[in-house]
C-alpha cells in the first residue's frame, strides 16, 4: 500500500519535473558508470571468478524549486551489481521538501515521500560514482547485506541546522517503511533463502553532525537507526515435507535456516563518523556497531531460543588529490558479524557453515584519473582476509568462499 502510493506520488513528481524541465525551470542531473572486475579466489557478488563486466550504474534526477521554501526532487536509478542487483530501474527518491524556517544562521524543514537516510558519510550517495572515495564505498561499514534496509524510507524526514559560535550543528530525524529487495537479509542471517521474505523494514533513525568553527575542515557525526523486520509469507509445510526437512537438517545442520517459519530481526545501528579535509587531503574514519536481536524464531514451527549478536566494524581512509587530474586512495577496513566470535569459529562449530563468511579485514589501494572534473577512470586493488563483505547474492556458494582473496576493479564514470 505505502509503496504503491509512494511510487504513484513519485511518478507524479517525475511528470511534474519533466514538465518543469520542458519549460526551463527545473534542473536535470545524472551519472553513468561501467566497471570491469577481476577476481581469482572469491567471485565478487557472482557465482564465478574471472573478469566480469556485470557492474554498471545509471542515475537521473530532476528537481524543481517552486519558491525559496518549496522544492520537489526525484531520482531513478538502475544498478547492476553482479548477481545481487539486476539493473531494473528503481525510484531512488521522490520527495517534497518544505523548508519552512530559514534565518541567517539556522534552517528547519521537512521532507515527505521517499527520502534517503542521513547515515554516516556516504549512505545517501553510495550509488553516485564521483561521490565515492574509490570505486566502492568502504565495504566494512556500507556492506551490501544491510544496504536496502538503511538506504531510504517511505515516510517523513525532519531536518534542522544551527550555526553558533562553537560551530555548525545539523540534525535529521526520519521514520517510515522500506521495502527490502531480494534475499540479502536471509543470506546474512541464515545463508539460505528461506521460503518467506524479510520484505519490509520499519525504520526510525537520526543523525547529528557538528562542524567546529575553529576547524571548519572537520566534520563529526553520530548516526543511529532502529530497524525491525519480520519474516513474512512463509510457506506451510505438509507433514511429509516436515519429515523430509527434519532428515535434511539432521544430515546437514547448516540447512536449518532454509526451514525458518518465523523470525523477527531488530538491528540497532550506531555509527560514529569523522572526516577531516585540509587542502588536498580527505581523511575519513567511521566506527560501526550493530546490536542484532533475533527473536520469535521457529524452525518448522519449533520455537528456537532468542539471540543477540553484536556486529562491529570500522575503517580508516586517506585520499590525496595530487593535482587537478589525479587522486590516490588508501584504506584499511575491518568487519566482524559477531564481536564475541571474531574468527567465526563458534559459528562454524554450531552451524557447520563457513567461518570465513563472518569477518573481513583488508587493505584497498586505488587511484582516480579525472579526464575532466565530470569524467574519470578509477582503479582499485583490494586484498582481504575473510569474506563477510561478500555476503548478499543468492548465486554465491558461501561454504566454498576462501579466506584470502583479492579484487581488481577498473571503473569509468561520467556525471552531468
Amino acid at each position: 500500500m505505502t509503496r504503491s502510493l509512494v511510487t504513484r506520488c513519485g511518478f507524479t513528481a517525475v511528470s511534474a519535473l519533466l514538465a518543469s524541465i520542458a519549460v526551463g525551470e527545473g534542473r536535470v542531473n545524472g551519472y553513468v558508470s561501467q566497471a570491469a572486475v577481476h577476481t581469482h579466489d572469491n567471485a565478487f557478488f557472482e557465482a564465478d571468478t574471472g573478469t566480469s563486466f556485470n557492474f554498471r550504474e545509471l542515475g537521473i534526477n530532476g528537481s524543481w524549486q517552486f519558491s525559496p521554501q518549496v522544492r520537489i526532487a526525484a531520482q531513478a536509478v538502475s544498478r547492476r551489481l553482479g548477481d545481487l542487483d539486476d539493473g531494473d530501474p528503481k525510484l531512488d527518491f521522490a520527495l517534497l521538501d518544505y523548508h519552512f524556517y530559514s534565518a541567517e544562521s539556522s534552517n528547519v524543514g521537512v521532507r515527505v515521500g521517499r527520502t534517503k537516510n542521513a547515515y554516516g558519510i556516504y549512505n545517501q550517495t553510495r550509488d553516485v560514482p564521483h561521490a565515492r572515495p574509490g570505486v566502492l564505498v568502504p565495504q566494512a561499514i556500507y556492506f551490501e547485506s544491510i544496504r536496502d534496509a538503511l538506504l531510504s524510507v517511505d515516510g517523513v524526514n525532519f531536518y534542522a541546522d544551527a550555526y553558533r559560535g562553537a560551530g555548525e550543528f545539523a540534525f535529521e530525524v526520519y521514520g517510515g517503511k522500506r521495502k527490502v529487495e531480494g534475499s540479502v537479509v536471509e543470506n546474512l542471517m541464515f545463508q539460505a533463502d528461506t521460503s518467506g521474505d524479510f520484505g519490509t523494514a520499519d525504520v526510525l533513525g537520526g543523525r547529528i553532525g557538528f562542524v567546529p568553527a575553529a576547524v571548519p575542515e572537520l566534520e563529526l557525526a553520530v548516526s543511529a537507526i532502529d530497524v525491525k523486520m519480520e519474516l513474512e509469507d512463509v510457506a506451510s509445510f505438509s507433514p511429509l515435507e516436515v519429515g523430509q526437512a527434519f532428515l535434511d537438517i539432521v544430515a546437514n545442520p547448516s540447512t536449518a535456516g532454509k526451514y525458518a517459519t518465523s523470525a523477527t530481526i531488530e538491528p540497532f545501528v550506531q555509527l560514529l563518523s569523522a572526516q577531516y579535509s585540509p587542502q588536498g587531503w580527505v581523511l575519513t574514519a567511521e566506527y560501526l556497531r550493530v546490536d542484532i536481536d533475533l527473536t520469535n524464531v521457529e524452525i518448522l514451527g519449533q520455537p528456537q531460543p532468542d539471540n543477540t549478536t553484536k556486529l562491529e566494524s570500522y575503517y580508516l581512509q586517506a585520499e590525496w588529490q595530487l593535482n587537478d587530474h589525479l587522486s590516490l586512495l588508501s584504506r584499511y577496513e575491518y568487519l566482524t558479524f559477531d564481536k564475541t566470535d571474531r574468527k567465526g569459529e563458534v559459528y562454524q562449530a554450531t552451524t557447520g557453515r563457513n567461518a570465513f563468511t563472518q569477518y573481513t579485514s583488508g587493505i584497498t589501494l586505488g587511484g582516480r584519473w579525472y579526464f575532466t572534473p565530470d569524467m574519470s577512470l578509477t582503479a582499485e586493488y583490494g586484498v582481504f582476509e575473510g569474506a563477510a563483505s561478500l555476503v548478499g547474492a543468492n548465486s554465491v556458494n558461501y561454504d566454498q568462499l576462501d579466506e584470502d582473496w583479492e579484487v581488481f576493479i577498473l571503473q569509468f564514470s561520467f556525471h552531468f
Partner: protein
Amino acid sequence: MPNIKSYSVRSIFVFLCLWAASASPSSAETILIMNAGLEGEQLSNNDLLRVYAMKKRTWSNGEPVVVYTLPNKSRQHRDFVYNYLRMQSHHLSRLWHKLVFSGTGSKPEVVNSAAEMLEKVANTPGAIGYLDGTEVNMASQSVIAVDAHD
C-alpha cells in the same frame, strides 16, 4: 565593454581580497562579488565556506542566498575554491553531488564567463559570485566586491 544597466548604480566598492593578495599569483585577480543590495553584509571565511557548501541559505537582511559559480573546468573556479574556500575543487564537487543526488539540495547555477557572472550577480537580489577582475569593467555594474575576513 559591458552594457551599463538602465537602473541606478547604487554603490561600487572594489577591494582586492586580502586572501587573494597573499595567495598564488594566478588568483591575484579573483574578486568575490555580491549584489549591491547586500551592502553591509558581514562575511567571514566560515560564512563563505557555508555559502558555497550551500548550507547558508539566508542573508542577514532576510534575502535568500543565490550562489553562482564558473564551470568546474575553469582555472578561475579551481583557484577560487583553492584560495578562498581552502579546499580542492573535486571535494567541493563532491559536496554538491551529495546535495543533488540525495535530493536534499541543489548545486549553484553555473555561468560561463566573467561578463555573465557580473550581469547575473548585479541583477539577482541576494546573489554572490566571483570573477577575474581584469576581464570585465566592474564599474559598469551595481555589485560590491567583498573583503572576506575571519
